[in-house]
């Protein structure tokens, strides 16, 4: 089958994601500056050829901080989506395939998770677990469980009722075989597309927690924290906030684009 025509925007999005992953894996390749020590560099320098995004109040290169921060933000986002994907998909699979009381219990629990505003749920978990990168990631991941569980359950229910599943039973396949060979593969592709979409969302949520001061502690260059620190100089040094924010936005936009493209393919 001919592959669907890949749109240039989707390619650009993939390129952005690839670049950020490279930042996270090998930040030293992209900048020679030290993200945590400004050394003798002057503070609050405006953007220039030497310091693309300028320097902050103690002379640290903002671009270097963003490059080195990618690993924190990306890792946290992956942990968050991993928690949501694994727990949510498992719950959704059980609810969708077992039905009966198990489904009732799981879906009520999902309703509860959905009805507590996401940020408040994250804050509740952060306050219990304590501040920090991993804890913030888990907190964000818990709020993603409900969506994954709902989507997986509805997919499993939809696929289970599809004529081809009935036909597979008719061809003599047992429940386990049908579940593994037909239902799970056909249910999962939209769920994986959602996972990609959720990475962008998780980056936003984690940077929000970082901005509020509940994520990674300073001086680690976490993206939300970088903006929070630059906020004190908003009247004079615009570059401290504008560039980091743009980077976050572009990365989130790219995951969004990619997730949407994946969803269209999987539909």
């Amino acid at each position, binding site marked *: 089958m001919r592959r669907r025509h890949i749109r240039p925007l989707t390619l650009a999005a993939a390129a952005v994601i690839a670049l950020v992953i490279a930042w996270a894996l090998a930040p030293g390749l992209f900048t020679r500056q030290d993200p945590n020590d400004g050394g003798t560099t002057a503070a609050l320098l405006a953007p220039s050829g030497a310091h693309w995004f300028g320097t902050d109040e103690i002379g640290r290169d903002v671009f270097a901080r963003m490059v080195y921060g990618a690993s924190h933000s990306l890792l946290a986002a992956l942990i968050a989506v991993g928690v949501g994907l694994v727990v949510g998909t498992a719950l959704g699979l059980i609810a969708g395939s077992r039905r009966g009381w198990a489904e009732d219990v799981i879906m*009520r*629990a999902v*309703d*509860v998770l*959905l*009805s*507590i*505003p*996401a*940020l*408040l*749920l994250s*804050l*509740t*978990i*952060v*306050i*219990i677990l304590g501040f920090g990168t991993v804890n913030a990631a888990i907190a964000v991941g818990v709020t993603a469980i409900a969506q994954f569980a709902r989507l997986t359950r509805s997919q499993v229910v939809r696929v289970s*009722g599809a*004529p081809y599943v*009935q036909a597979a039973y008719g061809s003599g396949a047992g429940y386990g075989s049908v579940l593994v060979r037909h239902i799970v593969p056909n249910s999962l592709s939209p769920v994986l597309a959602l996972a990609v979409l959720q990475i*962008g*969302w998780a980056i*936003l949520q984690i*940077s*929000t927690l970082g*901005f*509020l*001061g*509940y994520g990674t502690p300073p001086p680690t260059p976490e993206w*939300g924290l970088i*903006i*929070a620190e630059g*906020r004190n100089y*908003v*009247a004079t040094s*615009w570059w401290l*906030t*504008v560039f*980091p*924010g743009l980077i*976050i*936005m*572009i990365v*989130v*936009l790219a995951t*969004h*684009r990619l997730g*949407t493209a994946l969803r269209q393919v999987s539909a």
Partner: protein
Amino acid sequence: MSRTRPPALSWRYALNRVGQALLVLAIAFTLASVLLAILPGDAIMARYANPELALSPDQIEAIRVQSGADRGWFAQYLTTLAGFLTGDFGYSVASGAAVSDLFAAAVPATLALAAVGLAAAVLAAVAIALLATFGRQRWLRAVFDAVPSLFISVPAFWLGIVLIQVFSFQLGWVSVVDPSPAEALVLPALTLMVPLSAPLAQVLIRSIDEVRAQPFVRVTRAKGASDGWLLIHAIARNAALPALTMAGLTFGELVGGAVVTETVFGRTGIGQLTSQAVANRDNPVLLAVVVVSTAAFVLVNLAIDLLYPVIDVRLRTSPGDRGAPGNQGGHSLRAASGQADAPATAPADRQEAGA
């Protein structure tokens, strides 16, 4: 034979839905109070002894008794529950003040912000969706089609900072120092509007597209209808239904948005109360915020669900009318054509055949 729905059925639906909402609320309350009050119970009580709070031993003892901390966890749970049912949310461990007093001071500002932000978001979403679907030029539609994913990708806290930078410091349009109440509301409301309008616009665009592809829209066009007529008479109500559901679900975003926005703009309100509570590990305050906003979320969505049958006439027919089983394997040719999806089809067809 009359096919109007017996009122008893709609009452059953409503009661069922109300029961569900109460159940969810009860579980959410239990979960939050266990996590925030009961598990860390003694640690919280210990913090009331903080000399900075300057609470007298009598006052601390009163709090102990009132929160049931001197008894078992179940008693504590019941006391907390009773307190929430009577509007007594306990005491802040950071300031020693009654949480209900803190709420009373914070709620009006947040309500004003939320109302203005939500109204702006709905207007923006409708405008974006209309331009993305009915825009005259192809490029115009493409641009506005992309707006929701752009809006969804903007970090709200950053947007607030940029707005302050541009409109207060660069352009000087909005004063940072001692603004009028209305002036103080503009930028925060804009900040709140962007992330709120994105999902609404997205759902609206998708549902307008879906409705427009429906055969009945083609039939209406074949009657000579203009785009305007189509929009008002055929599309608007049908497309609004999914958007209404989405509006209810974005309520959670509204609360989260208020936390971020009030922090960025330094506004007093529930959001600022929340972020201070987390910073100070002020569990009683956070518990109250969580419980009250969850209750608000559940009630708003309950109201929307109960309102739904008023707007969507199809829901006024009871599901009990559905005759043949829909999931018993391949159905007849008609099942796919949409004729069998209506509950009243089977009996009426008989009438037709026997006429």
